[in-house]
Structures are given as structure tokens and as C-alpha cells.
């Protein structure tokens, strides 16, 4: 979609088109199963029957190519950091990252003496929404995802960026 992006002036047609495109992107943001540690269990619980993630249109995809949102759930260690970067680069373009849990936000409980822990996943990949908690309740994860969907809906993919 590279050639269509930020090419057109801002007028009524592109505004309406933007609304439709970003609505579609935000309604069906498929998440990439990227469970590392304890937050992965809470992510599984969020995708299970009680807090259903399918309700807000998020389907789990196991290949980075078909996923839009990468939920970094758990502690990113230094040995794993290069893999996180590699997988992030393989995702198709309009991609977003949610940093779930204190370990991904800033190294969390392991930020003092963790010699092998990366202090926050935003050192290697750009993060869109930080979900606090250790592990965050499924409700706060869904609230973070809804905040991400609001952010996607406000995007203007077609109009030329100032």
C-alpha cells in the first residue's frame, strides 16, 4: 500500500476514505502470539472464554506476516532481544506494538539486579501503548487494546503528512 499512503491533499473525499480505512484497520487488528513469560498466561486467559478477545475483532495469528499488533507479553532478555527485533521487522507494514506488563515496560521487577534482562522493550522497537501491571488484569489488557484501537482510528493514512 506504499504508493497510496500520504499522497493526497486533505479534502472531504480523502477524509471519508481515511475514516473507512482506519476503521477497518482498528476493527480487525489481529494480534501476533508473542508470549514470553507470566504475561503470556494472562494473554491466554484474555483470549479464552471469559474475557474474549474475539469480541473486539482480534484473532490470534501465529505467523508475523499476517499479524498487525505485536503484544510483547513478558520479560525480554538480552538473548531474546535480537529475536524480538527480527520478528518485529518481519511483520507487514501497518504494525503496532503493545508493551504488556512491567517487565516489557521498563524491566519491571528485574530492573535492579537483572544483568540479563533488557530494561524495557522500547529500547529496541517503537511501542504504541504501555499496559501497566504485573501481570496486568485481562481487563486492563483489553483497555490497553481499546486505547490502541482508538489511536489507529485517529490515523489519517491517505492525507499528506504536514
Amino acid at each position, binding site marked *: 500500500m506504499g504508493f497510496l499512503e500520504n499522497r493526497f491533499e486533505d479534502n472531504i473525499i480523502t477524509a471519508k476514505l481515511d475514516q473507512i480505512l482506519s476503521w477497518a484497520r482498528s476493527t480487525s487488528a489481529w494480534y501476533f502470539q508473542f508470549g514470553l513469560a507470566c504475561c503470556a498466561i494472562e494473554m491466554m486467559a484474555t483470549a479464552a*472464554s*471469559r*474475557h*474474549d478477545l474475539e*469480541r473486539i475483532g482480534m484473532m490470534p495469528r501465529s505467523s508475523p506476516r499476517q499479524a498487525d499488533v505485536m503484544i510483547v507479553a513478558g520479560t525480554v532478555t538480552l538473548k531474546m532481544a535480537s529475536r524480538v527485533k527480527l520478528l518485529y521487522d518481519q511483520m507487514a507494514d501497518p504494525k503496532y506494538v503493545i508493551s504488556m506488563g*512491567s517487565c516489557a*515496560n*521498563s*524491566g*519491571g*521487577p528485574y*530492573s*535492579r539486579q537483572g544483568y540479563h534482562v533488557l530494561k*524495557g522493550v*522500547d529500547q529496541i522497537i517503537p*511501542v*504504541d*501503548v*504501555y*499496559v*501497566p*501491571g*504485573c501481570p*496486568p*488484569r*485481562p*481487563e*486492563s489488557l*483489553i*483497555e*490497553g487494546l*481499546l*486505547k490502541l484501537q482508538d*489511536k489507529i482510528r485517529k490515523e489519517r493514512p491517505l492525507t499528506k503528512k504536514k
Partner: protein
Amino acid sequence: MKNYFQNIWQSITTLLIGLGITIKHMFKARKGNVTLQYPEEKWPRPERNIGFDPKNYNIIRSKLHVDIDDCIGCRKCERACPVGCIKIDALKVPKETDLGLTSSGTTKRLLISRFDIDMTECMFCNLCTYPCPEDCIFMTGGPNSEKQPLDYEYSQYDRSRLIFKFANVTKNDIRRITTAPPVQQEIL
């Protein structure tokens, strides 16, 4: 030869039993479903046995909150935190300045100029709330929901907004209180 047919018969019956279970769940979808639809339904739904009444919860692990005017600056919570995500600067105050009383009646002797909690590092282990003599640091919701309502929906777009600053003393207040008033010499 016998177990060839027995094999087939066994697979047919067990597969049909499995199908029976899933179709039973599908027809019971309205009564049997357990989904808590988060944005529409908030968390405790006792009548559909999802969660219990917050009143008889012992504690709920949610955002930390500090009633700063009860805090006497003893830094016990800062020492108890295994991660060190609480940062307190308590300044000495000249002898006779009156900083008021905490709600439980102890006089405050230290001026808290900075009380920050970094919620991106906090591991929600609740170890800091037990040693506090004034019970001014607590997790919102549950038993202390009348002090501070339950709040677990505070994810942010950028990380620095997750560092909560509770000290409500401005710069010149600090300068005014900590500079000792010029001692009036008694003019003999």
C-alpha cells in the same frame, strides 16, 4: 481383522460423543456463556458467578495510591519495596514550624518534597502497604475503595506518564518552609 472393525467403531462412537458435547454447548450458548464483556460490563458479576462482591475482597492488586497529607516521611515503604520503585525526598524542617497533624493524630516533622512511584517498575507485590504506620499507601479498590475508587485502567501512550508524583508541595513552598526565619536577637 476383528480389531480393524472395532477400531473403526470406537473412533465413530468417541467422535460422535465429542460432537454431542460441542453442539450441546452451542445450544446452551445464552445460558452457558461465561464471557465478561469488558467495556460494557465491568468486573464483578456475582449473579453469573464471575468475580465476587468487592466488599468482601481482602485486597485488590491495582494502582498504588498515597494520601500524601497522612505521610510522615518514614520511608519504610521505600525500604520494603523489592524493586525500589518508590522515591521519597523528605527535608528537615526547622524546629518549631508546624506541618500539621496526620489523620491519626501524629505530628508531621518532615516535609515530603517528592514522593514518586514508578508504576512501570512496580511488581504489585503489596509489600509496601504493610509497614506503613499511617496506612497512607494502599492499593485502590477492594476494602479501601471508599478512600480511593478501584482503578486498573490507566495504560498510557508514553511511559513517563506512568510515573505518578504524589507530593503536592511547590518549589517556593519548599524554599519558604525550609529557610529558617532570621533569628530575632532580643535587643537588650
